[in-house]
């Protein structure tokens, strides 16, 4: 059934035209506003991407072009000379290996420690729960420098200084509070009813955890693991203090920064940046979840 028009006054042609004009104007205004937002969005994106483009441009230029002035904003010719020079330079492959090793150990350790702790915070009401959350928050707020210096001295005394494994211990300490809070929010987002249902249908609490909760929480835990990886991969202050001959990639680069040529510098920045680009892409959807919960 089609509805009828109920406005009683007949519409004059002039008025109809006026309405049309008004409609057009409003549309344009709306579109302008949208376009405005879009322009801001794009401008912000350019602001983020431009430096990355420039460094990529440098990384793929010949060393001559890197030193040229004025510099070109596009690599011409595209050259892998700088990148391959960087990758072949002494210490890069081992320090990359160290970085990956440290990051993996950090991820494994902090996840193993954080899963039970996060679960406890998410699921149980107990005396001191808020205090523990507060401790987590304040601990993650500690300046790294405060810990790195004494830890370096302690590790030296213990004879475990300058080993990737000990750096991973330190990185675990740095990332653990964040990881616990993130994982607790991941668990909190799995409805408790599921677990109860599983138990009603015959699971032990442990079975319920492994059969129901963990599979549901796994993507979130994986995202938190990636975040932990990125944190460890980028961390430079503790790394430069706690390692010497077994430096991680950022520490190695920072230490050689003032001694390195520009092509090396720019290639190193680019190579360090690439994993971040990839990892952030994978966890972009989880970022808000993780932080949304930490806020609370």
């Amino acid at each position, binding site marked *: 059934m089609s509805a009828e028009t109920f406005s009683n006054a007949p519409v004059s042609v002039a008025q109809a035209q006026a309405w049309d004009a008004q409609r057009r104007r409003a549309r344009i205004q709306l579109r302008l506003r949208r376009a405005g*937002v*879009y322009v801001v*969005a794009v401008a*912000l*994106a350019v602001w*983020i*991407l431009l*430096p990355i483009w*420039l460094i990529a441009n*440098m990384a793929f230029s010949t060393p001559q072009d890197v*030193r040229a*002035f*004025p*510099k070109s*904003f596009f690599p011409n010719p595209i050259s892998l000379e700088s990148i391959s020079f960087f990758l072949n330079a002494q210490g890069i492959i081992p320090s990359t290996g160290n970085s990956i090793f440290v990051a993996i150990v950090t991820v494994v350790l902090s996840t193993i*420690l*954080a899963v*039970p*702790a996060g679960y*406890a915070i998410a*699921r*149980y*009401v*107990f005396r001191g*729960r808020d205090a523990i959350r507060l401790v987590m928050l304040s*601990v993650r*707020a500690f*300046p790294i*420098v*405060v*810990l*790195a*210096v*004494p*830890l370096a*001295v302690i590790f030296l005394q213990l004879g475990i200084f300058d080993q990737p494994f000990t750096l991973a211990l*330190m990185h675990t*300490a740095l990332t*653990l509070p964040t990881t*616990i809070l993130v994982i607790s929010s991941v668990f909190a987002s799995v409805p408790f009813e599921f677990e109860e249902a599983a138990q009603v249908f015959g699971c032990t609490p442990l079975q319920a955890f492994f059969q129901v909760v963990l599979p549901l929480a796994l993507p979130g835990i994986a995202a938190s693991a990636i975040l932990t990886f990125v944190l460890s*991969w*980028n961390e*430079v*202050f503790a790394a430069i*203090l706690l390692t010497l001959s077994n430096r991680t990639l*950022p520490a190695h680069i920072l230490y050689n*920064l003032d001694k390195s040529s520009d092509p090396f*510098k720019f290639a190193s*920045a680019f190579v*360090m*940046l690439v994993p*971040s680009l990839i*990892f*952030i892409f994978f966890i*972009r959807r989880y*970022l808000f*979840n993780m*932080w*949304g919960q930490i*806020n609370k």
Partner: protein
Amino acid sequence: MRRAKWTPYLLLVPSLFYLALFFLYPMTQAFGLAFSRETQTLSLRAEPVESAATTGALELQTEVVVLDRQQLDETLPNGGTRPSFWYLIQGTDLAGETVEGWASQRSIFIENRRTSETARVTGGEATREWTFEHVNRMLTDFRFSSAISTTLLLMVLIIPAQFVLAIIMALVLQSQVRGSSMFLYIYAIPLGISDLVAGILWFAIFTQRGFLNSLMVSAGLIDLPFIFIRAENISWMISIIVLAEIWRATSIVMIIVVSGLQAIPKDYLEAGEVFGASMWQRLRHIILPLLKPSLQVALILRTILAFQVFAVVIAITGGDILTVLSNETFRWYDPARFNNPSVAAVYAGFIMIVSLAISLFYMRAVRSQDEATKSAT
């Protein structure tokens, strides 16, 4: 939610133990480093062996007379041998007494092992004592005050700009423009970028033959490259660091703000619209007040991180002319420079105290508002 007596504690024990091991223990050690000093005194021995009874003690740099010497052949654990020299020396100790006894070559400097008649004490056993010397060294270091002021200046310049930018980013993302998931990714990219890389990126733009000068010279705006990184005009270097830090660390604020925004029921904003609030009024009267808890978290986090700003500064300025607190910590720790972990520990403690104090101040400021909110209960 469950109630249980022991389970949650059991689950938390490993983490808490770990944190105690890597936070509490280093903290106490840092305290020890910062407030104690190692001094050396040479214990003289009755016989030319380390285990012999002591006959007295001498301060470092004491000039001594060599009365007798002995050359022993020491067998090393790896099977080799080395000559080992012991000297019967005599000198004046702290109390003014003349003491004499045996000391190994390790502890004294002697020009000729076989013929010299005098030597100087250069080694001994370490003893620790409490001291404010390291605190004093930090306070009297001429870079200390400039490190503080630069750090604070950076904080004051960076944080507000980051918040404004992060809120704009968040609002743009909230407005659901086309491709907003792509924009979200792009805005989040710096989250994974280390301060070191960010520093190199922005250095490449602002260095004398960098991109900005390339652009300006190519465009004919200037004839000669403008030198931004120069000691005569610190404000340029500050500006570059500020830009780099805003570029790098706004993402985290953006994430926090967006998740805070998402938690604000749409109703509130619509109610604002219906009741006549303009976009600005909605931001001012509804969004920002409701975002406050999120902004607080971000503010504390950013403040603490601002005190740790390090690699960006090094990468852009070289780190000597323009210095910040964490750079000073590193300078004092660095074996190639001061090689003095004690002063570094004092710096680290200072950073911690200041950033905790500021965080507490924020929390206090927040709480007074919260209490106002709840006072009517």
